[in-house]
């Protein structure tokens, strides 16, 4: 369990998650976080590859590849990976995002070696198990995933539209993680092989083991399963041009008439990348705006002005060039989307007078979310992997709270004045109208 090692005047404990940083000779970085409180252990792998690494004509491939990683490896037939973990009473999953792909399972602690065996077998020996039928099957599954989660949802294309506005054609975030159906159709087994050899190598990965394990044995166990996997070569550069101007320079927009029942206005702003200290300010500003029912947008637009039925805010933590702060407001039936957008815009600019109390509340909410997420070994492992892969610094987890508390109201006001005005704004609006 994370330990409380001090208290601030507000009475909130500062967290300290214990961890050790190791590495194998093949370049695999290992983070260990011991906690025997509950007899479960999390095994978590982050690979330094995501949709930003996809070449032209292969959008969606990093995610399709992630599906293929569950289709077996040299010593693990199709379906066995899931069968073995489920038989052990474990849970597992994987996700693909812009800058990375992660794979994880939480198992009863006596099944640690099962998880290490499964993860190492596919890191080292995935290709011998690949065939055309598996690729075709998972291509169909992923197409259905796109249909279910995007195409068959109201406003389902919003992220595609927004990313096109915020990131130029040649930028790796111009396209979505789910990608296009045509590009999925074009993917071949050769693509699988070359992607695997390039990116799924131990020196492009972080392995975190968190929870109940034997501290005296765990590195032997990791070495035993992962040690013989050969390192890869140099990683190719990210396709396209990740360089960006910090601001959009104007308001860019995409106004959509769609078969949706309620109007929605969405806005996004370029903000500093995740590895820039300015990102923390953006994160706090984002919570001031839209996290919780005491947040500014909820209070002003939902409660007081009654212009919106719901509001959302989110700061994407992205590495290449610029991240993105997103807000949206959904209007009532029959409301004008133009007025909704105007109201949202006013509130965004209004953040330039953010009060001390609002910032204090936002920091408290972010702290609470972080502390609570650390109760689960799976979450702890995921954050340690991320901080190691992105910053070679898992200890940053233990400094997050301090970093958040270091953001002042004047920082938020300055951020709002610089970033949230019409000169750095991408807008997507949905106006209800007719059949699709």
């Amino acid at each position, binding site marked *: 369990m994370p330990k409380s090692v001090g208290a601030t005047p507000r009475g909130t*404990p500062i967290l300290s998650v214990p961890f050790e940083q190791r590495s194998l000779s093949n370049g695999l970085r290992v983070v260990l976080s011991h906690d025997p409180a509950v007899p479960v252990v999390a095994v978590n792998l982050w690979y330094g590859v995501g949709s930003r690494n996809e070449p032209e004509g292969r959008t969606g491939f990093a995610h399709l590849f992630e599906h293929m990683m569950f289709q077996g490896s040299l010593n693990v037939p199709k379906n066995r990976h899931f069968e073995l973990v489920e038989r052990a009473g474990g849970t597992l999953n994987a996700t693909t995002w812009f800058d990375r792909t992660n794979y994880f399972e939480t198992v009863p602690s006596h099944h640690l070696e099962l998880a290490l*065996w499964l993860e190492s077998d596919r890191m080292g020996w995935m290709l011998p198990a690949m065939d055309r039928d598996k690729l075709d099957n998972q291509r169909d599954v992923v197409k259905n995933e796109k249909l279910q989660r995007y195409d068959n949802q109201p406003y389902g294309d919003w992220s595609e539209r927004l990313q096109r506005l915020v990131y130029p054609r040649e930028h790796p975030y111009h396209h979505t993680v789910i990608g296009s159906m045509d590009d999925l159709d074009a993917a071949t087994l050769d693509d699988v092989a070359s992607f695997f050899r390039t990116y799924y190598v131990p020196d492009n990965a972080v392995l975190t083991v968190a929870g109940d394990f034997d501290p005296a044995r765990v590195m*032997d166990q990791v070495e035993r399963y992962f040690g013989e996997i050969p390192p890869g070569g140099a990683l190719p550069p990210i396709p396209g041009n990740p360089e960006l101007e910090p601001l959009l320079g104007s308001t860019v927009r995409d106004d959509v008439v769609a078969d949706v029942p309620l109007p929605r206005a969405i806005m996004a702003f370029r903000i500093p990348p995740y590895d820039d200290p300015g990102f923390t300010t953006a994160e706090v500003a984002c919570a001031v705006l839209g*996290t919780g029912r005491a947040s500014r947008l909820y209070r002003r637009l939902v*409660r007081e002005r009654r212009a919106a039925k719901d509001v959302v805010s989110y700061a994407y933590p992205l590495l290449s060039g610029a991240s993105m702060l997103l807000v949206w407001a959904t209007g009532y039936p029959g409301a004008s989307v133009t007025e909704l957008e105007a109201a949202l815009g006013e509130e965004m600019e209004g953040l330039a007078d953010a009060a001390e109390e609002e910032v204090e*509340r936002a920091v408290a909410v972010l702290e609470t979310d972080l502390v609570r997420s650390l109760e689960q070994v799976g979450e702890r492992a995921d954050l340690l992997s991320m901080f190691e892969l992105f910053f070679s610094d898992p200890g940053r987890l233990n400094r997050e709270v301090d970093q958040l508390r270091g953001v002042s109201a004047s920082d938020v006001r300055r951020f709002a004045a610089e970033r949230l005005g019409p000169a750095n704004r991408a807008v997507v609006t949905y106006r209800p109208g007719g059949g699709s």
Partner: protein
Amino acid sequence: MNTGAKLMVACWSAVSLAGCAATTTQAGVDYDAPDPETGKRTVTIGVGAGGGGRAGSQALDRSQVPAVGEPEALELPGIQDYTMDNGMRVVLVERSALPLVSLELQFRGGGAAHPARQAGLASLVADMVDEGTATRSALDIADAVDLLGASLASSAGYDASQVRLSVLRARFPEALSILADVVMNPSFPEADLERVRRERLARVVQRSDVPAALAEDAFAEVLYGADHPYGASLLGTRESLEALTRDDVAAFHRARYAPGQATLVVAGDLKRAELDSLLAGAFAGWTGSGVDPAPLAGPAPREGRAIYVVDKPGAAQSEVRVGDVAVARDTDAYYPLTVLNTVLGGSFTSRLNAKLREEKGYTYGAGSFFDMRRAPGPFEATAAVATEVTDSAVVDFIREIERMSAETVPADELDRARNYLALRLPQRFESLDDVVRRLAELVTYDVPLDFWAGYVAGVDAVDEAAVMAAAQRMLDPGRMAVVIAGDRSAIEGPLKALGLGPVVVLGGRPVSQE
């Protein structure tokens, strides 16, 4: 961070499978699925049981699944169960590993405790309790909760209404006093009621455009009928929401949010003596027995199997639901049905997902569940499938359900299902919120609190014959309802051609309020 904007693409998870297998049990959360049952096992079965050699001491044979050691015993929490002078039951687990407290104050009766024509009332009351009290405005409450680093949330299911609180130990007394105020003294301001009603009505309109929601609502109504509380939406309908009054809200609150209807489930860094004294202060003067919810009548019997289509012109997929009214939580077949469902549709490697996703590629995920409630709840099998294979998918659903009562489950498959349930118990008690949930769900259904201690034995005792008997008793695909929200023009013909039963077209998308 707001999940509304999360763009992660999940390969598969309990969450995503459950997401499509979801039923709306809480009005505040549109796709909040019931947890699959899990548990712990004391005897290791399956993968290469035997002594694990010391790592590194011999060459690794990768073709062999690693040997496992002995499972560590899970220490189930010690439970204190007592009643306060005002009639409120308290269930306390003292656990001091982290300086946190988590609790649920649960009241008997939710959406099934009022008539179906008042659909949405229970969840509306839950939404309104923190919209202002005699001494605090809604904003005061939200602000104070955030500054305390607490989370406070109220909701209602069919069988219970609840307020949940999670907070650092040091801030527990202040947070508890806010919770008590919200429960005891809500003022239900007219202006806020009108705003919340308007938000609700907009959500009803929004839901009418979500294919999965259309399928869920139609499935409930087909199974139970619009006059049965389980057939009505917890969110409410346009008609019911427009008719509800402040008096209705206040009356439901009086009947349900009373100490005589309440159980407080608490886990955290807290001793009983401290808790009792804090409760005495926070809930001073709170009395009343409330009104026991009336038992529910069964739904009117349905005719035999039929296919119901909710038209969503141009839909990119078909949302399919197959099922029937099944059992209440107090069924004597709890364990056989739980194991049966794990084999059929309760895990990634279950038959429905293996067939429809991993073999056919028709869907991103297929699954099933028994939603066991105080009165018999539904059995539901579910998937979102590509429009052009809708008819083929229905055939596979029916065939896999039939197979459960026609063929004995192979020993290895049964073993995997029992292990999956039993060995996952420790994960289900990982956080304080988990501990509270596990106990609170027992309270809702009057299940004895030592239930989890007997869980592994209960799962282990299920054999092939018990699964077969349960399937024959509870799964009759010959009379199940098949409900599909999708593009009628593309699917109606092929569905009729199946000859599986009459195809009934239910009203399409309701006219929006514009």
